[in-house]
């Protein structure tokens, strides 16, 4: 697209947008204004029509006024004289008055006279209309009827009537009746209003109109008493329509007037807008064309010419011809500048051509010289290659090689020499070998010089040298004197090789051999020791066997073989489970247990639980007790397991006897106790009749005391760990802080009763969970706290603290009570033992509490200890181990 078209579209486009905006805005605004003006005008016309309507009625009212204050009318109401009718209300009189009916009503609301004339003839008075009138005037309050005028719809027609009270002409006498005039509104009436207002008026009844004018339904929906004008939007371009609602005095709508009006204002407005648009468009086009023409003439044509001329010059035709543009504007200047530039270019081109020629000449001369230089370079290269070959031969030798002159000054060194001495070639050449030597004795060097210089023989020997970095090294050296034909020494060639490493490894081997000797002796001793241990293990009374990590038996003693009934000739190296089958009685079933796997997994010590049996080779079960633990080497690495066990038949029998005795004893003790307690419960619940108050108290006390006996029986069983209600429970993870809070909460009422304050201070960091059988732990802690309360002084305190270290969790229960006498401290955990001061303070008590506490805590791997001072208080310490994974190495 060229410049000309671009500018044309730019100007055209901008003007089109600008004029469109102006036209759109102006026509919108003008149309709106004209419509508003038109509507205002129509509203005014609607008011005019209504006013005309009212004027007509007022005329009727004025006519009626003359009749109402007429003494004859007044008299007529009183005497109903026929004369009044004859002279004033003949049929033709109605036509003159412009009415269709007249009615007289007396003060009592009775109709005195009524007449209806239509088209000049009397017709019967329509009963519907009488009814309507009677509704308005039946109350007899005539005075209210003054100046009453309204439209009504009666017998399907629109009727207007007006009423006035009848008074004497002087206005002194009070009203004695009402006179009513009325007529049917018909087409003529409306036509008269149309003529009066010069508007096109039609009407229709609000209810059941005989024919509906256009837009009636819409108008009916939009009109109301408050909003009695309505102008619908959808007007044609020729006419605009408005509607008025006329209502009864009480607000019931009666009829709608439709007024049509030509849209003069609107049409005039439309034509003005059209004129405006045409004008704007024409002026826009003219402006656009003018701008385009002027721009083309003064600017674009010149630019096009300039472009054309430059093209010509570039193509090379007629370069000398200048570009001529008349005028003094920027384009003319540009043309001049171009001319100057073309001229300069031409001059430059000529200069370049001359220079090129001279360059060509010098190039030829240079080439000749270069040829000579290449010839001498080749000669040099050949000699250098020969020299390199010699150097490489010496350099590639792995041995340190140097050449000195007859005075010992270095004149050549190879690469290996550089590596061995650590000196650079430049440093070594011109120096003497003492630069890296001088480590041997003076005599050594003297002797060496005699050999090579005086005797002119080869020297060979070991020499210690020193590197540039100070490191001392040992070499095997060989120095050869090079002698000329005349017997004069010309050079010395020295060759050295590093033997430091070699010598060092020789030394190491010797030392290692000595060490081996030593450890052999040690092993011998250890072997003897181990053998004596094994001999001991072989002969002890307990069965012993050891396994490796895979559970293969690596040792088994005689007792173990005897206990299991194994043939002694059979060797070990079997899996332990092929020889030893341990069973545990659980839920009256025998379950096999894998102690070895268990202990290897846990990496600790396992004590056999109760009721473990070993299955002998002959199938007989043998009750056993024992322990199993891991074996660790000196680095703490687990290498196997060792099990020690013994025949526990006798022990088990005794235990069973004790348990069954206790079980029977408990049953026998509980039976009468239980029945007594239930009976007392019934007495207390008054199931057997009402008890006197005092008797009830006594029974209640017996009931409480019998409860202590139940506790005593339960304690007995607890101590023997045979109580099924409490001794069978799995261990679980326990949060000691919340656990402690629970225990304290249950003990608080008791503490309050005895006036003891419980203080529990939680640890600052979160206490780790411990693994415990929670029911037993609970009972143990409850018992400790209960003791702290029971054996405290009045207004004493019981302080409970928890301390966490890396490996243990310590619970301290500290009271301010009677303390434990020093003499009794050793027996405090014994069964049935109670310290004398405790018995004195609390007569009740089985002496089993602390024993049970200890047993339950030990079951949970916790240790209990205490510190006590008589009359000052006791502190119990309970230590729980923390089984963190960190502990295992």
């Amino acid at each position: 697209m060229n410049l000309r078209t671009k500018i044309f579209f730019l100007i055209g486009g901008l003007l089109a947008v600008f004029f469109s905006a102006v036209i759109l805005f102006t026509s919108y605004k003008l149309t709106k204004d004209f419509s508003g003006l038109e509507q205002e005008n129509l509203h005014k016309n609607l008011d005019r029509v209504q006013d005309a309507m009212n004027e007509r009625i007022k005329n009727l009212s004025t006519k009626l006024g003359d009749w109402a204050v007429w003494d004859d009318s007044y008299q007529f109401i009183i005497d109903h004289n026929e004369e009044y009718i004859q002279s004033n209300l003949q049929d033709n009189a109605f036509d003159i008055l412009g009415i269709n009916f007249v009615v007289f009503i007396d003060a009592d609301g009775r109709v005195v006279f009524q007449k209806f004339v239509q088209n000049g003839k009397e017709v019967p008075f329509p009963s519907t209309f009488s009814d309507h009138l009677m509704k308005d005037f039946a109350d007899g309050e005539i005075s209210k009827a003054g100046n009453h005028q309204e439209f009504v719809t009666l017998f399907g027609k629109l009727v207007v009537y007006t009423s006035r009270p009848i008074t004497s002409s002087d206005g002194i006498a009070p009203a004695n009746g009402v006179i009513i005039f009325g007529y049917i509104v018909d087409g003529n009436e409306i036509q008269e209003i149309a003529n009066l207002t010069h508007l096109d008026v039609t009407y229709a009844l609000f209810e059941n109109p005989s024919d509906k004018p256009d837009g009636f339904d819409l108008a009916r929906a939009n009109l109301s008493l408050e909003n009695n004008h309505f102008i619908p939007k959808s007007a044609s371009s020729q006419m605009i329509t408005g509607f008025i609602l006329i209502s009864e005095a009480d607000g019931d709508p009666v009829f709608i007037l439709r007024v049509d009006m030509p849209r003069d204002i609107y049409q005039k407005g439309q034509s003005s807008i059209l004129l405006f648009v045409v004008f704007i468009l024409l002026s826009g086009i003219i402006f656009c064309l003018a701008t385009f023409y002027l721009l083309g003439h003064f600017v674009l044509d010149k630019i096009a010419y300039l472009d054309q001329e430059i093209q010509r010059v570039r193509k090379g035709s007629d370069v000398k011809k200048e570009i001529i543009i008349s005028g003094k504007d920027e384009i003319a200047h540009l043309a001049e500048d171009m001319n100057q530039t073309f001229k300069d270019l031409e001059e430059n081109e000529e200069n370049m051509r001359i220079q090129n020629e001279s360059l060509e000449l010098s190039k030829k001369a240079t080439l000749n010289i270069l040829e000579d230089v290449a010839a001498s370079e080749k000669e040099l290269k050949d000699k250098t290659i020969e020299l390199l070959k010699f150097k490489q031969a010496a350099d590639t030798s792995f041995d340190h090689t140097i050449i000195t002159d007859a005075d010992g000054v270095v004149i050549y060194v190879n690469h290996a020499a550089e590596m061995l001495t650590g000196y650079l070639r430049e440093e070594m050449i011109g120096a003497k070998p003492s630069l890296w030597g001088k480590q041997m004795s003076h005599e050594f060097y003297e002797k060496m010089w005699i050999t090579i210089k005086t005797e002119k023989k080869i020297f060979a020997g070991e020499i210690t040298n020193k590197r540039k970095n100070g490191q001392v090294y040992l070499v095997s050296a060989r120095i050869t004197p090079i002698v000329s034909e005349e017997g004069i020494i010309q050079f010395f060639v020295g060759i050295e090789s590093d033997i430091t490493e070699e010598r060092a490894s020789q030394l190491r081997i010797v030392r290692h051999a000595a060490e081996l000797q030593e450890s052999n002796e040690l092993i011998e001793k250890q072997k003897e020791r181990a053998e004596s241990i094994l001999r001991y293990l072989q002969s002890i009374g307990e069965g012993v066997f050891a396994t490796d990590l895979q559970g293969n038996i690596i040792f088994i003693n005689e007792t173990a073989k005897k206990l299991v009934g194994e043939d002694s000739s059979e060797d070990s190296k079997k899996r332990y489970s092929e020889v030893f089958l341990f069973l545990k009685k659980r839920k009256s079933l025998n379950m096999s247990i894998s102690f070895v796997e268990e202990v290897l997994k846990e990496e600790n010590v396992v004590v056999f639980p109760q009721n473990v049996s070993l299955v002998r080779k002959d199938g007989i079960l043998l009750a056993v007790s024992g322990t199993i633990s891991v074996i660790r080497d000196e680095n703490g690495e687990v290498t196997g397991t060792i099990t020690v066990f013994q025949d526990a038949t006798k022990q088990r029998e005794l235990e069973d006897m004790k348990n069954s005795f206790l079980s029977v004893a408990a049953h026998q003790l509980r039976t009468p106790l239980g029945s007594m307690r239930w009976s007392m419960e019934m007495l207390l619940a008054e199931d057997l009749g009402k008890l006197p108050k005092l008797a009830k108290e006594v029974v209640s006390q017996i009931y409480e005391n019998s409860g202590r006996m139940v506790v005593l029986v339960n304690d007995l069983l607890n101590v023997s760990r045979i109580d099924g209600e409490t001794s069978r429970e799995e261990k679980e993870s326990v949060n000691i802080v919340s656990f402690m809070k629970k225990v304290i909460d249950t003990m608080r009422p008791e503490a309050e009763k005895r006036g003891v304050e419980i203080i529990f201070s939680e640890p600052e960091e979160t206490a780790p969970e411990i693994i415990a059988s929670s029911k037993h732990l609970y009972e143990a802690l409850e018992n400790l706290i209960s003791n702290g309360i029971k054996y405290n002084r009045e207004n004493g305190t019981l302080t409970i603290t928890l301390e966490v270290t890396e490996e243990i969790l310590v619970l301290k229960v500290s009271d301010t009570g009677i303390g434990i006498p020093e003499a009794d401290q050793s027996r405090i955990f014994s069964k049935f033992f109670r310290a004398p001061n405790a018995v004195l303070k609390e007569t009740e008590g089985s002496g089993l509490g602390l024993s049970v506490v200890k047993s339950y805590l030990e079951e949970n791997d916790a240790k209990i200890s205490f510190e006590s001072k008589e009359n000052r208080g006791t502190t119990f310490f309970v230590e729980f181990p923390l089984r963190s994974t960190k502990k295992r190495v």
Partner: protein
Amino acid sequence: MSAKPFVLVVEDDPFYANIYRTKLAKENIDAEVVMNGDAALISARKRKPDLILSDLIMPEKDGFQTLQELKGDPSLKDIKVIILSNLSQGEDMQRVKDLGAEEYLVKANTSLQTVIEKVKNHLGIA
């Protein structure tokens, strides 16, 4: 279920028997108390009880055997049984549970009130 629930009590101790009789009657529960296991089985077959309360140590047929026979009889095996005994060894408790008893209560360790609550619970009239 008939209007009044029926509970069969197996108890040889006359003292306990009397307590059960009185207390259950008071709680408006129809109860029959028999002295041993054989009598219990005969009674249960005659009139199927809603619940059986049974002692363990009894002459002739003890509680364990009675329970076993009850649970072995297809027409009686769905009757719930609560064991009330003064034995408290873990083994006994496990044996009774394995035989199919609902619950095991140690008489001396349980208040009569609790027993009645449990009975009502099982009868569904709590």
